[in-house]
Every structure is written in C-alpha cells, then in structure tokens.
C-alpha cells in the first residue's frame, strides 16, 4: 500500500479524481419522523419504540411537522429549490433493522433540487461552490449490533424512524481535500440552521463517497465505486485517496474498474469490496400510499426562508467588515454560530473587537476545549458581559494583564463576576498616590546608591526600580503610575 499522502502526486498529470458525496443528516427533532417516539440518544436498546416504528401490522406513518421545517430550512440554506409538491416513496429491501421491510424516502419527486455548498475561493478570489443534485427526506433504519452476543446479531430499533435528510452533490469534487472542505462547510451550514448536531462520530452525519478516476482530458465519467463505512472527515479524505490510487492502478494496468460498494477499514487504512449481495438491490421504489404528497405553499416556504439565521459565509464577511478582523480571526470565530454569537456579545459590550477576538480565540476556546463542554454551557458560567467587564478592567488599568489571566481562570471555575474575584484575591491594581509613594520611598531607602544615580538622570535604572516597587506591592501596583512617580523624582 502506498502512503495516502503520496497518492495524488503519483498519478498527477495522468488521471483525474471525480467525487460526488451523499450525506445523510439526522434532523434534530424531539420525536421521530413518523411517530411520537423520542429521538433521545443513549436510551436503553429498544426503549424508544412504539408499534409504528416497530412496523407492527396495522400501523401507519404520520409525518412529523418539525422534521419538515428543519428539512426545508436546510434546503433553503443550501440554496436549493424547495418544491411545492414532493412525494414520499417506499424503498424496499429486507434487513432485520428495517422493521417495515422498506424505508420511507423520496424518489422521483424530492423535497428540493439544486443548491450549492461553498468550499472556499478560487485563486482569483471568486467563490468556489459545489453544486447539489437534490435534498430529500427519509427515515432511518435501526442498528444491528454484531459484537454484543456471541454468534448472534442483536437489533436496536431506537434509531429506526429517526428523520434524515439526504444531501446529494453533483460529481464536482476533484480532490480529497475538496471533499473535506465540502463536508466541513456543509456541516457548518447544517449547524447554523439548527437542523442537526451533524456529528460523524455520533452518527448524526454520515457520508457515502462516489469515486471514479478518468484520464486527464477525458470528459466522460469513469465507472464509480461507492465508499461506505467512513466515520470521520479525515477518514473520508483518506478513503477517497486510497480508492483513487487503486482505481488508477487498475486503469494504468489496462483493466476496468468494477462498479461496486467498498467498505473503508480505518484500522488497516484501506477499502475492501462489500459482499456482492449488498450491491445487487432492486429497491422497487413506488409512491408511499400511506402518506399524501407533501404540499408546501410558496408563502409557507418563504416564511421558512425568513426564519433562516445569517449563514456562515455572510457572517464571515460581515465580521470582517464590521469589526475589521482578519480572515484568520473570522474563520475561527465563525466555526459555530455559538462561538460567533459569544464573540459578538463580548465585542459589543466591551467595544474593542480586536481585543475581544483575541480573548475568544485564545482563552475562551482553550477553556472550552479543556473542559470539553459546548460553548452553550460555557457561557452560563462565563457570561459574555462578564468577560467584557474583565476586558474593561484590563483596559482601564484596574487589573494587570497577568492578573486578568488569573481572574479568567477563576471565572471559568467559579462563574463569579471578575471584579468580585479581583477584590477577593487582591488582584486589583493599586493606583492611589499615597501607597505608591510610600513604596517608592521605601525602595529608595533600601537602594540608596541606585536611587542617587537615577535621580541624577540615569534612565537605565528606571526598569529595575519599577521592578522593586512592583515586587514590594506584591504585583498590585499599577506600573504606569509607578513609572510616572519615579519620573517625578528625577532632577
């Protein structure tokens, strides 16, 4: 096997990679797509089930309105054309974790078609978008658990019937890195509209990659394979590169790529063909007779559009223009809507956006990463107004920079207001003349030679003398004031 990072270069100039992605996103609804069961993650096996999602005889699906709202919101955020009539269809196949014997999906009349995912900018600064084919709604299968009981497979149907949207891209991606950028951008948009947690690790975002290779200059698509079983964005990139390398090898040797499903094995870092049976489905799609067509009025669709929050690309532009931030700053600060909201609150209250940006990028995100808690929880402990107050205190010389760091750490731990912490911990800077003069007098008394030389005009001694005063004050003296007082003593 070739090291993954070597692959693109090995075939550079000879073959071109073509990738299309199918992304399944689990919608963040309280209840399932077609029944009232909870979608809570982590319940005991089969606890979140009812006759409908168990597919018991005589049950019928009833569409969850909340799922339609989230699906439409996502489709609109992706710039897709949401149709006034879409039709659910049955996708028929047998599997133990598919209790109805079919999945309720959409086929020839999907919820939305078209749209795009921005993945960055071209070298001349134009936005680089990947076109979408369609966005449709469907329900999820349960889980087959193969490693729980020896020699047997267990079925957990808690996930069965959970609402999903499938987002299908055109075969417009030309590198594994583009695929990664596409997925990160798509995840960010889905998070911004609040449609999903979009976590590959937890399975709320799943990716199948259609990969083909063709000689450079060829315009017809090569035979594709579909890679499944990938569980992180970086694994998607590695799997695509591995598969591209394999296909190029086949083509270069005069062979033909077989159309098949490949399963990514993350441990071995390679794809292997799925058993051929998993590949030979005829799903026998037909319109789902238990559900009327989904009819959305233009007014309703426009109302969902009006509800959309500011999307990542727009927010990045606005933060740069409104606050004068760098590209690097806004990339970090707009990673999630929560971070961006937090930053904007701090910046608005404190006033100096660059200082706020530095603090959020450095200290806040560090604390969030260390505690492992989402920013939604973090901001209950360190409210944006409290952080802004700390920045105010630093700017106004009420506390020193190093004291501010100490105070911030204690804010994270205790949730207390910064002034209160500063007072209790004795971290307020002393800027009253009387105590400062007393400390200067003491230092001059203890170091008469240096004092004499300084007063005679030796400016080199300014630094050490300030240091002595700071030390005597236990760090609480306002260094600016100390400098000024020393300067007064110079003859």
């Amino acid at each position, binding site marked *: 096997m070739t090291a993954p990072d070597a692959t693109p270069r090995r075939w550079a100039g000879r073959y071109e990679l073509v990738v299309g992605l199918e992304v399944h996103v689990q919608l963040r609804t309280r209840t399932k797509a077609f029944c009232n069961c909870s979608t809570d993650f982590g319940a005991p096996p089969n606890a979140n089930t009812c006759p409908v999602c168990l597919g018991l*005889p*005589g*049950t019928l699906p009833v*569409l969850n309105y909340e799922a339609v709202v989230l699906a439409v919101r996502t489709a609109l955020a992706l710039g897709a054309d949401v149709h006034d009539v879409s039709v659910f269809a049955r996708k028929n196949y*047998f599997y133990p974790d598919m209790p109805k*014997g079919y999945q309720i999906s959409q086929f020839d009349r999907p919820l939305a078609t078209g749209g795009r995912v921005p993945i960055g900018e071209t070298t001349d600064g134009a936005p680089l978008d990947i076109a979408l084919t369609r966005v449709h709604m469907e329900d999820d299968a349960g889980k087959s658990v193969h490693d729980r009981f020896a020699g047997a497979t267990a079925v957990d149907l808690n996930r069965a019937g959970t609402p999903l949207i499938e987002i299908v891209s055109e075969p417009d991606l030309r590198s594994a890195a583009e695929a990664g950028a596409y997925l990160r951008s798509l995840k960010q948009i889905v998070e911004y509209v609040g449609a999903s947690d979009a976590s590959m690790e937890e399975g709320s975002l799943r990716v199948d990659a259609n990969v083909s290779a063709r000689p450079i200059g060829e315009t017809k698509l090569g035979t594709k394979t579909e890679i499944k079983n990938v569980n992180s964005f970086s694994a998607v990139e590695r799997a695509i590169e591995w598969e591209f390398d394999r296909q190029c090898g086949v083509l270069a040797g005069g062979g033909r790529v077989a159309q098949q499903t490949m399963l990514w094995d993350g441990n071995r870092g390679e794809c292997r063909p799925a058993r051929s049976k998993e590949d030979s489905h005829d799903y*026998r799609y037909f319109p789902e007779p*238990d559900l009327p067509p989904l009819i959305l009025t233009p007014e309703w669709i426009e109302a969902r559009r009006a509800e959309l929050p500011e999307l990542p690309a727009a927010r990045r532009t606005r933060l740069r223009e409104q606050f004068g931030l760098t590209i690097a700053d806004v990339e970090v600060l707009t990673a999630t809507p929560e971070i961006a909201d937090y930053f904007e609150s701090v910046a608005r209250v404190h006033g100096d956006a660059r200082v706020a940006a530095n603090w959020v990028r450095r200290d806040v995100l560090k604390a969030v990463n260390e505690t492992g808690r989402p920013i939604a929880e973090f901001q209950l402990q360190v409210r944006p107004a409290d952080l802004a107050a700390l920045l105010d205190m630093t700017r106004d010389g009420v506390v020193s920079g190093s004291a501010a760091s100490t105070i911030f750490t204690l804010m994270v731990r205790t949730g207390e207001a910064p002034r209160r912490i500063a007072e209790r911990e004795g971290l307020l800077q002393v800027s009253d003349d009387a105590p400062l003069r007393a400390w200067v007098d003491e230092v001059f008394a203890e170091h008469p030679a240096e004092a004499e030389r300084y007063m005679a005009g030796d400016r080199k001694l300014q630094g050490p003398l300030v240091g002595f005063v700071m030390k005597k004050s236990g760090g609480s003296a306002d260094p600016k004031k100390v400098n000024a007082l020393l300067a007064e003593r110079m003859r």
Partner: protein
Amino acid sequence: MSPHDPGSLPVAQLAASVGAGRLGATAAVQASIDRARDVGAGRDGLNAVISSDDEAALRAAEAVDARRGDAGDAAALRLAGVPVLLKDNIATVDLPTTCGSRILEGYVSPFEATAVARLREAGAIVLGKTNMDEFAMGSSTEHSAYGPTLNPIDRTRVPGGSSGGSAAAVAAGVTRIALGSDTGGSVRQPAAFCGVVGVKPTYGRVSRHGLVAFASSLDQIGVLGRTVDDAALGLEVIAGVDPLDATSADVPMPSLRGGLAHVSDGLPLRGLRVGRAKEYFPAGLDARMREQLDAAFALLRVAGAQIVDVSLPHTELAVPVYYVIAPAEASSNLARFDGARYGARRAGAGLREMYEHTRSEGFGAEVTRRILIGTYVLSAGYYDAYYRRAQEVRGLIAQDFSRAFDTVDVLLTPTTPTPAFAIGAVSDPYEMYLNDVFTVTANLAGVPAMSLPIGHVDGLPVGAQIIAPHFGEPAMFRAAYALERALAVEAAA
C-alpha cells in the same frame, strides 16, 4: 320488542333498549353467544368465527350495564350492548389478529384499531374475530390457513370473500353487524353471496389505523349489516378523521339515516338520478341476474327516481389494473412478515434462509402468487410497463366516475356476475379474479359503494350494488333504504 330473542332486534332498537334499561347488554351478548353455538358459527361448523372469548364479551357487557347503573350515560351510547364481530385483519388487544395466515398464528396486537376503539366507545361488545382469505386476498374465504368458511344459506357454497366470515356470521344471525375490509370488493361480494348488506365507504372515510394493510391505496374498513339501517349505524360510529391515519379525510359524516323517514307523497327518491352503466350489464351476464337488476331499477323508478343510461368506458380495464396495483402494494406491505420480530419463524442457516423458510411456509399459495406478481411489476425495467401504466389507467377509471356523476347521483349495478359458487368450483386464479369485475372499480376510484340483497337465483341471494361519488354516502344510503323498503313491501304483497 321481543325480550326472549334480543338477537333478532335491529341494532337501533337493541341499543335503545339497552340504553333505556329495558334490556341488559349481558342478555344481548348471551343471546349472540347462544346463537353462534346453535348455528355452529365456530371452527367445527360454518368456520365463520375463528377466535372468540365469551367470558370477556360478557364482562364487557356487564361493564356497559354498570355504566348505565351509575352514570346513566349508557343512553347516549349509540351501540349500547350491540354484539359485533371483526374480520381477523383488524387489530384487537384481547383476541389474536391472524389475517387468516399461518405467519401470524397466535399474534396478538399491542394496540387496537381506531374503528374498534370507536365501536367500544359507542358501547358495542366485541364477540370474536371472523375468518377471511389470507391477508384479504381472495373472493371465497377458501384461502384461509384456518380452513374455508361455509355459506349459511347453502353450506356447499362459498360465502364469498375475503370478508366471508363476517358475512356468513351476519347471515346466520350471530350478530347484526360485523366489520370487514374491502380492497376490491371484499365486503360487497360476500354480502351479496350471503344475502346481507355490505358497505365500502369512501376511501379515507374510515381510519385504516389497525387494519393490517393489503393494498394501502385501496383498503377500506367496511360494515356488514343485516339491514341497511344496521349497516348505517355501524358506519356512522366508525367513520371520521383520525390523527393516526394521514389518509383519513377530515370530512364530517352526516347522518345516513335520513332515508328512514317516510315521505308523504310515497316518492322517497324524488329528484334522485340513478345511472345504469352499460359496462356493468355485459352481454354475457346471467339472464336471471339481469332480470333481478331490472326489477330493482323498476322499484327505484316507482320510488320516484329517474333512471339514466350512462357509460364508464374504461371499466373492462379495472380488473387488470387492480391486479397490478394491489399486488404491487401487497408485496411491500407484506415484507414486514419476515420472522425477525413477531409471528411465526422457521429456522434456517443464516438470515436469508430464515427469511426464505419463514415466508415460504408462512404464506399460502395465493399470497405468494400476489407477492411475486407485485415484486415483478415494481422491478427495474418493468415498472413503467406495469405499475406506472396501471396508475395512468386508474386515473381514467376515476375520471369515468367523475364524468358519470356529472349526470347521475348514484349508479346501480350487479354486485357480482353470479350468485355464490360451490366450494372448490373455481380453481383458476384468473377466473376467481373476475368475481371482482363489478366491485374493483369503486376501490380504484376511491368512491363509496354498497351491496344489498335484492332477490334470489336458484335459491341463492343476489346483490345489487349502489355506487356514489366521493363522500356521497348519504345519497347512497337514501337509495338503499328506499330499495330495501320497496323490496319488503313487494315481498309482503
């Protein structure tokens, strides 16, 4: 009223008597239990009722009597103390729901059908479950894993199907009403064969929640009744929108019993236009059947109706269209019976073999045949030629009806081409399918239709079918009440 035989009381009278305290629900139920025993309704007789729990039924009757005792609200119950039977594809929590199939032998549903819940709320007492062609696929109730049901009028004959158990039980006088399901005629055809009334409501009129699906776009729960009024009461109770069925219609159910009222001029059908569609009277139709229908038209005319000739040109395509769409939906609906979670399971080496054994042994020949047909017509490469084409023609059939109903209020047709045939006489599946020739059209178009007995040929009952536009049950029942009364007057004369 006759307190010695509560089973002979019409549903309205029985419910009123129980509600008013003149008769105990327990006595009514006991009379039905006795009657079932006397006529041999069970497995060793007519084989119409395949599961029952007499003790539970009597306890439920006691509960209705007790409600009357303390709250006095039994008077408000429209079916107080009325014994009912349910086709075995309608889910109940206290009795098995087998669909006449080995694959669901002993299966008890954890929830109840909306129609059953509404019957119970109205004070009805569920007496038992009735035999049926397996998964409602058949026109004779010969295709049940629990053996054939016999026609109580002539025990050498089939009762029709697939709701043959319900029709036979009502004909035998076990109960006055029973629920069936009608996908292509499965309530109306057995009603005709057994000489009772059978109603298939408008698609969406009655919730399908709890009806084990055969062909979801065609299935409707229907009512079999001894008389038009019995059936009307049953339908009024079970009809109505249901949040558990997205295809149920939010259309209020007007009273169907207006037709009961006597009209002063003796012309109850004044102003009603009744269509006579030539496609339902083909040249090959049995002359004696035609004669019976002609007599019925004459009675309607006497009752004030105007008879209008109409044409529904796509009628002859209905059977082929039906036998593409219904099996297609069935092949998907029956996929869930795989042995993995409930019902019968036959072991096998590995998952695929378990599926194979379970389904091969669990389903009978007719069900297997339709699953195979349905799988075929939905397959890649055949979908357009069969399923899509059938849906297009289905649209033409529906259009035939809407055009006909521009000029008439209802249609009157034969329910079946022949009276009940002998058990075992029809072995060719296609010949069996032709039994549905006059009934499948209403399912394909979603319109309501009902059969009522209008006479006999060779001592066997003959049914006439009244078809109405969508949600046109009131007009349909108006014609049915008038025809039933005219026939009774004629018989008494």
